[in-house]
């Protein structure tokens, strides 16, 4: 579907070097801290920027030097960039009018798309009067109107409040499955990336440091940076290697527990406590260092506890870790 072949492009601040591909019908997130090159990668796919080296292929066609207009891509910008001088309907129908589709067809498609994004009858609204969530839906409808083979979303939820964000996230997944379209989605939020993606490309300083399915990314991160970037990470030493344990792989042992085969018990003191609703998150100081543990029982800072884990659950981190 999309293939980056040794794409290199240099900027004053960093060099972007990407080499990966995205399969048809996948929902892929590009995840990374700010300044890591996420948006640039998306802009390269769209053709707003051109790489200095390498090729970008979409469906086997070399699009490296093709103008954005010729790429058949839908793009939703961070702030949606709805045209302020056009109504909702004119925004959604813009791409179709460019393609000189008959007015009746444009009207019908616009209506259909507004139904799809659950804004029926919004054609004549002024975009200035829409809420953030509505704008985003209109932007998605506008991007889908030309039946693109690929939909690119640049931090589409960043200006939307928490509750609505989750709904819209689910809606994008629903749309993506329903239309079977390939979606590439840029975010700096690991929850977002993990929640909706089939695969995630983690970018660090212009390099894809890991490109994997969400579970693999979470359980078997390639290095310490990825491990810490995608979630809470505990590192313990076992058999001479570093083991990664996620907080839910540790537990606080009850009174009298201990001595079980294949379980390591550590004395620890609770340093910090966070209430998460369904569970509690504890940071404990133990003989093996600082550990993050999830536990459903309420404890207090300063309590002495026993933290337990199975080394067999741990994922061995490779040596020579860059960070």
């Amino acid at each position, binding site marked *: 579907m999309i293939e980056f072949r040794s794409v290199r492009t240099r900027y004053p601040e960093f060099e972007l070097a990407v080499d990966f591909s995205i399969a048809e019908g996948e929902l892929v997130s590009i995840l990374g801290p700010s300044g890591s090159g996420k948006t640039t990668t998306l802009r390269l796919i769209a053709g707003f920027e051109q790489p200095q080296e390498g090729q970008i292929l979409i469906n086997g066609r070399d699009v490296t030097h093709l103008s954005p*207009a010729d790429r058949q891509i839908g*793009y939703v910008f961070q*702030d949606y960039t709805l045209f*302020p001088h056009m109504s909702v309907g004119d925004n959604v129908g*813009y791409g179709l009018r*460019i*393609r000189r589709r008959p007015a009746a067809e444009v009207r019908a498609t616009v209506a259909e798309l507004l139904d799809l994004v659950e804004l029926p009858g919004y054609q004549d609204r002024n975009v200035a009067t829409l809420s953030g969530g509505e704008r985003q839906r209109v932007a998605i409808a506008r991007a889908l109107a*030309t039946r693109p083979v690929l939909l690119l979303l640049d931090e589409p939820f960043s200006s939307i409040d928490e509750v609505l964000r989750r709904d819209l996230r689910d809606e994008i997944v629903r749309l993506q499955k329903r239309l079977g379209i390939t979606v590439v989605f840029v975010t700096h939020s690991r929850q977002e990336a993990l929640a909706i993606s089939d695969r995630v490309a983690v970018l660090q300083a212009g390099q894809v440091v890991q490109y994997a399915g969400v579970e693999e990314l979470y359980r078997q991160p390639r290095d310490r940076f990825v491990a810490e970037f995608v979630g809470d990470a505990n590192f313990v030493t076992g058999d001479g290697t570093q083991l990664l344990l996620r907080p839910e792989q540790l537990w606080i042992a009850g009174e009298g527990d201990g001595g079980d085969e294949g379980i390591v018990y550590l004395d620890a003191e609770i340093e910090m406590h966070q209430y998460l609703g369904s569970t509690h998150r504890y940071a404990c100081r133990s003989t093996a260092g600082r550990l993050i543990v999830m536990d459903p029982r309420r404890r207090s800072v300063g309590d002495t506890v026993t933290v337990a884990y199975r080394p067999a659950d741990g994922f061995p981190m490779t040596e020579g870790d860059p960070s």
Partner: protein
Amino acid sequence: MNHHAPVRAASGGADGRVLLVGLAGFFLLFMVAPVATVFIRAAGHDAVGAGGLDAFWSALTSIVTAPRTRSVITFTVGQASLSAALAVAVALPGAYLMAHYTFPGRRIIYSLSLLPFVLPTIIVVVAMIGFYGKNGLINRLLGTDFNLVYNFRGIVLAHVFYNFSLAIRIISTAWSGIDRRYRESAEILGDRGPGVFFRVTLPLLIPSILSSFILVFIYCFLSFGVVLVFGGVRFSTFEVAIYREMFINLDLPAASVFALLQMAFSGLFILVSTGSLHRARAGAVDTGQSLPPLRSARPLPRALLVLYTVTMLVFVLGPLTTMVVRAFTGSSGALGLENFRQLLVPGAAERNVHSILRSSVPGVVLRSIGLATASGTLTFAVAGLTALRLRGSRSTWIDGALQIPMGVSLVTVGLGLRLLWQDVLPPVILIVLGQFFVAFPLVFRIVRTGVEELSERIVNAAEILGAGRRRILMDIELPLLRRTFLNAYAYALALPFADLTVAMTVGRGRVATFPVAIYRLIGFRSFDLALALAVLYIAFCLVLFLVIDRTSLPGKDTP
């Protein structure tokens, strides 16, 4: 939203009100009352034999129905529309280049584009005559004697020359402010090149195009100096018609009827324009963080660059260079300081310069500087205090009222000031007061915008930290507003320095400032001396331009 900080409301309330009342009194005494005086005198004028209002009424009906009036209306509106349309058309490609490209000389073109705007009309006139006139460079080069200036064409040409830079500034600032993602959105949806321009960019530019058109239109509608010299007896704007009736035909009722008509028209335009601007801006969506167009460093399409630069050179530098060269060219045709010597050394000229100007040239220089400094400082101080006082208030009517001087006939204000105050105040003071109204609307708008852009949160932060009113002013506001204030002060000085209208009407040509002196030299056909004086003027202004330009180039801090 009106987040008026309670601290400020409590401490600034009383003296703030005093300031606004004082300002209202000032406007009443020196603008409203003088204009009213003109009308009252006109109504009481006894020239026709019948008395009072009847005379005024008969003047009104006879003038309104006279074919000459119709031609003044048609000419004033016609030339203003044409000039504004052409100025915007000339400015569009320039604005595009300014907003999208970095190229050597960009800053210089930007500075040059400011030059005609701050030049006094009378110097534009001199420069145009030197370049396009009968004995001007173009005719000499072509060996022809086209009359390019003393006619309709000349007036429009001068107006475009004078104003297109203003349009470039306004439009290019707006263009640099258009989020490039709008264009990208259009491209990704399949649009390209001209389609993107006409369907997306142009509509987004409409407010700035409209507002520059309206501004240029109003400037041309109120045009005085250019039309006074180039219009001859055939073409008058309202402003010139008022001047003619007052000082040449000595027909006060006729003059005041023209003044009334002019005010009615400019009131109408300002009303219509604020309405249409408001509607055009209503569509704008605040996208939060905005990405300006990438200013590309790649070489421009060569043809475009060459074409525009050549046009700029011919159009702007042509007249100005010709003026400078001719100023340094003596009657013998040799380069030298001949003209300056005649100007500055008593008795060196055939004609007595002193008697033409009723002053020595150093006297002109000192008088101009003194008047401009007095009036500029007054304008700046009043505008600054008012803007600080009004911060956070969105009272459209106070803002509107403070822009009124823009639409009021300066000739009428000038005459009224004389009629009403001449027994009490000397002419120089009246000129200072009159020139206040020349610069105030623009200076106030600059300061007001700057003050409003200063984040209220920064001030709130200082208040929370315990800073009092005075500390906030000294530690926060003044340092942050330094550029705004410098810029506003530069305009406050430049505009009265360049003013011809008020100096002529209040001083009746007897108070010789730079522009008045140049006008008189043209009047006495001492054209080369006028050029030399204009060059002296420009030398004086250059320093001021540099200050303005350093502080007002939009977007120079963005990459």
